[in-house]
């Protein structure tokens, strides 16, 4: 950034409006105006509270005002605004209306979301507003419209809000492809990207359309945040995620502030914390609960109460992470480890929207490993270090969806579309072969054996252009657009107790719907089980149709709290590295609470410390089993995958592995056979066990059966349009759909393992549920640096991993064991 940014004077009526309110435009707001005047695209990187949104819209408002009212109402859109959240678009529309009204600007602002009624959508095509606020999915639909060319032909500016949040997912891929198309339809288009502070702004800037790279405007953070670790009378436990030890102090902090946001990582933690706070709420503080599974109406009520200043605290998950202004928050409490430095900064930014005053925040680690992680995160925040993920490589399933959409809009030539697609940052490196294979997939499924040519969705004409074969194909496309594939969800209904006749249909039971839970969670419940949901303890009765029927329990009932993984993030690579460094540096331990330092001291004395680069592997006998515990600090997902692969290898070495547990920091596996004896007799080599070759055949073999892989495949199949997305009316068959994509996966894997969809599913697995990329990086890093420490009993660090035993089960991976269990229980019954 140049030292003296070119200042562009604020024109009237804007200058007057600012002055009348006693405001001075910020330097970066004027700088963006100057960029716009010069026809440049720009990425604005700024912390919360810097007036980003206004900075993004000012150039448009100024231009539209200069243009004046125009008699021709069909001249097209001037500015397109895209946000990751529907609610954010609606919120921004409201915020724009105030200045537009007060300055009497000749500007028409409208939103277009999934909730916009059909007649309004139709009218928007005929008489486009000046500024249209929408989401990536709606942009895709608009671009697949036959009128897209006329509709976007006059587009001058595009504003991309919360760009950092969009680009890390497949939605970012879809958006980038849409932007590439916009760049072609409106060649003079200038873009503004708005982003929170990120590690590599130049990578983010590539998402903005245009052949020339966008300029980057960085606003340095205001006052450094006032942030610390909450001091508690009771030391954090060795394991667990409830933060039960810190409730008194959390409650006191809430009482002493005006409005606190209490962030947690999972819905389970949110429910637990909320319950605990209510139990001790002697002052009748207004504390509310907000998470993604709750009924929308209930969430809206909480948001409104917040904005109206009626609440004292809100316990929430990442649903409140993104930049919506809900009220005057003066304290952020982050319970559990933040998992990433950038996420922590985002959350802290929710407190105090005035840039020049420090935000106040406290971290509440819920176990001792998390103390280390919180300490590492605090250091990172102090250095303003960021750990935002690397740029994505565009997914092929999303490309398939986009190609079909483009054909729905207008006939396309392969060469031209290939060039256009590569303008999208995630697809810059797309090979022509992959592009052609994707076109082929869209047309007829892209199978090597034989094609479905007769029923092709798109066909190449004599003129070389690809066209939709049938209007019904376009209809199919519109129903399947988007990259968010929801997990099958079931509604949670509280029914009134009844005697006698059992109603056969859910609605006949009456009672209120509280929200939704993942189907797999509900299916694991047995009648009579109790769980916490929406701040209440419910007793499970049955699943009827798409609803979980429950009853309220008597006050004081102890819930069997669900092991509820929704929304849990793995530890970031960046923080993991810092945690390892901290462990390896005993001189720094004085900065840790005494019980934690003592715990590490014990580890050093009784075993040894995990090194910064290498891997510590401990083995010890316990209760007739032989344990192997290691500490890669690579996050739960990568450890889960590692555990699956290690147990396969131990099995092949005939060491009779029985099971394993993993958390964010380490992994424990146990066997019937003596591991140390096997090592002594050369039947097992620790270096060989952790060899990189486990990512070869062992991985392939496991993937064949992996439920996680099947889940990835199902998502790719839906996004790519191989199978149809299901809608509420059809939801009853969703469970059968899950089944059938599994069958398709099995067949395709065996008969065409290199098929496009399998490649897409594997690419997802590498970064997503299996985190293979991270596991591969770790195996490379530790090669030749593995330290094996045989022990006589468990070590202090290992306890914190072993305590996970019996706590959680991985979804869908142990099915044979479940069947054997069910069978065995019957045998027992029969034998008495």
């Amino acid at each position, binding site marked *: 950034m140049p030292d003296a940014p070119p200042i562009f004077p604020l024109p009237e009526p804007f200058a007057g409006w600012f002055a009348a309110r006693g405001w001075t435009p910020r330097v970066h707001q004027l700088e963006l105006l100057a960029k716009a005047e010069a026809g440049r695209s720009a990425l604005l990187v700024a912390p919360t509270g810097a007036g980003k949104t206004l900075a993004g819209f000012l150039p448009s408002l100024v231009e539209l005002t200069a243009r004046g009212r125009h008699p021709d109402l069909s001249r097209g859109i001037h500015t397109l605004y895209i946000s990751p959240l529907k609610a954010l678009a609606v919120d921004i529309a409201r915020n724009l209306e105030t200045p537009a009204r007060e300055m009497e600007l000749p500007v028409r602002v409208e939103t277009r979301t999934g909730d916009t009624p059909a007649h309004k959508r139709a009218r928007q095509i005929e008489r486009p507003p000046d500024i249209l606020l929408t989401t990536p999915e709606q942009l895709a639909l608009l671009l697949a419209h036959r009128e897209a060319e006329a509709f976007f032909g006059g587009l001058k500016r595009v504003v991309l809000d919360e760009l950092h949040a969009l680009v890390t997912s497949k939605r970012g891929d879809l958006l980038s492809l849409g932007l590439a198309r916009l760049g072609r339809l409106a060649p003079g288009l200038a873009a503004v990207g708005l982003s929170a502070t990120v590690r590599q702004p130049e990578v983010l800037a590539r998402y903005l359309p245009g052949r020339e790279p966008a300029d980057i405007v960085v606003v340095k953070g205001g006052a450094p945040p006032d942030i610390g670790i909450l001091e508690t009378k009771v030391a954090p436990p060795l394991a667990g995620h409830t933060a039960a030890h810190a409730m008194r102090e959390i409650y006191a902090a809430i009482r002493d502030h005006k409005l606190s946001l209490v962030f947690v990582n999972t819905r389970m933690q949110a429910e637990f914390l909320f319950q605990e706070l209510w139990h001790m709420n002697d002052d009748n503080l207004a504390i509310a609960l907000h998470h993604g599974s709750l009924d929308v109406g209930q969430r809206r009520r909480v948001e409104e109460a917040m904005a109206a200043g009626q609440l004292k605290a809100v316990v929430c998950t990442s649903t409140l992470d993104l930049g919506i202004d809900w009220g005057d928050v003066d304290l952020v409490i982050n319970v559990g480890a933040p998992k990433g430095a950038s996420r922590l900064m985002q959350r802290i930014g929710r407190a105090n929207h005035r840039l020049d005053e420090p935000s106040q925040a406290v971290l509440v680690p819920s176990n001792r490993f998390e103390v280390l992680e919180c300490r590492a995160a605090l250091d990172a925040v102090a250095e303003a270090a960021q750990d935002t993920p690397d740029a994505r490589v565009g997914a092929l399933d999303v490309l398939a969806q986009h190609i079909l959409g483009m054909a729905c809009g207008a006939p396309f030539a392969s060469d031209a579309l290939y060039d256009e697609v590569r303008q999208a940052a995630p697809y810059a490196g797309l090979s022509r072969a992959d592009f052609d294979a994707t076109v082929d997939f869209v047309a007829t*499924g892209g*199978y090597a*054996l*034989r094609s*479905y040519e007769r*029923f092709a969705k798109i066909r190449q004409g004599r003129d070389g252009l690809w066209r939709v074969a049938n209007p019904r*194909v376009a209809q*199919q496309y519109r129903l399947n657009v988007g990259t968010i594939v929801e997990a099958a969800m079931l509604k949670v209904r509280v029914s009134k107790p009844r005697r006698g006749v059992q109603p056969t249909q859910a609605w006949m039971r009456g009672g209120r719907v509280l929200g939704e839970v993942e189907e797999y969670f509900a*299916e*694991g419940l*047995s009648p009579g089980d109790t769980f916490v949901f929406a701040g209440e303890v419910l007793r499970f009765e049955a699943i009827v149709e798409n609803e979980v029927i429950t009853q309220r329990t008597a006050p004081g009932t102890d819930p069997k709290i669900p*092991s509820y993984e929704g929304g849990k993030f793995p530890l970031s690579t960046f923080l993991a590295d810092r945690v390892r460094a901290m462990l390896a540096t005993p001189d720094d331990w004085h900065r840790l609470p005494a019980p934690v330092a003592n715990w590490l001291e014990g580890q050093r004395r009784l075993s040894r410390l995990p090194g910064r680069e290498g891997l510590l592997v401990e083995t010890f006998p316990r209760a007739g089993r032989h344990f192997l515990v290691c500490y890669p600090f690579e996050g*739960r997902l990568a450890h*889960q995958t590692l555990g*699956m692969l290690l*147990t396969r290898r131990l*099995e092949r070495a005939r060491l009779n592995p*029985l*099971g*394993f*547990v993993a*958390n964010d920091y380490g992994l424990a596996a146990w066997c019937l056979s003596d591991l140390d004896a096997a090592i002594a007799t050369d039947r097992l080599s620790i270096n060989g066990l952790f060899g990189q070759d486990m990512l070869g055949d062992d991985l392939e073999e496991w993937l064949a059966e992996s439920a996680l892989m099947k889940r990835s495949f199902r998502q790719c199949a839906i996004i790519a349009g*191989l199978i*149809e997305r299901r809608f509420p009316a059809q939801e009853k068959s969703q*469970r*059968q759909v899950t*089944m*059938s994509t599994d*069958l*398709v996966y*099995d*067949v*395709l894997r*065996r*008969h*065409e393992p290199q*098929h496009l969809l399998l490649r897409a599913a594997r690419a997802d697995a590498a970064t997503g549920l299996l985190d293979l990329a991270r596991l591969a990086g770790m195996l490379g890093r530790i090669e030749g640096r593995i330290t094996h420490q045989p022990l006589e009993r468990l070590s202090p660090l290992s306890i914190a991993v072993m305590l*996970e*035993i*019996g*706590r*959680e*089960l*991985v979804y*869908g*991976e*142990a*099915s*044979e*064991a*479940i*069947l*054997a*269990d*069910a*069978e*065995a*229980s*019957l*045998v027992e019954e029969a034998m008495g």
Partner: protein
Amino acid sequence: MVVARDDEVAGQDTAGALVLGLHAAKADPSGALFLCEAQMLVVADLHLEKGSSYARRRIFLPPYDTRATLERLAAVIDTHAPRIVVALGDSFHDDGGGSRLDAGDWERLATLQRGRQWIWITGNHDPSPPAGVGGDVVAEIATGGIALRHVPGSAPDCRAAFELAGHLHPVAKVAARGQVVRRRCFAFGPRRGILPAFGAYAGGLNVRDRAFAPLFPDGLTAHVLGRRTFAIAAPRLLPD
């Protein structure tokens, strides 16, 4: 996260041995049933060419389901070396299914039929199996007191002691340790057995569905397919 290894709790392998009526039989974990004395292998609901039947609706499923099904059938024939193979109906997903079989699949089928008797029992999806497919086509057969037909209970006057049928594609849902498994299964009662669908793309109907109750007045046991078959009795079987 905890993952227990399969065998920690597994009982001993019973190799799926059963007595149906008075006959020794084996429920193969592939979903086929072997009648030992008659040297007869029974498979239900192959649904060949189900994948290609979706293409008309522009759903392009991988066109390898026929091959996959026949390869699995070849493996189980190899294991039991039956004298007779009986396909219990719905062998072809639709009446046009036969015409969509490719040359490789015709050849695979012909190889399987060589040196043994092959019986196609007709089903609702394939009232008339394709011409030239080889083997005999019948509505039902009986062997030593066991009647074999496609739709269970469709001939109530039958005097056979035991009935083997397909048609319903039974699956069982079982929960343990907070998790759920939904798999294909055999459904066995004292007088009737229903085979799981053998076809690669065939869906399933839960054995707790009302279609099963009248067929098993004395209750049923599900023999769930896995690395072996797992015999699971009614109390542990969950509805969908």
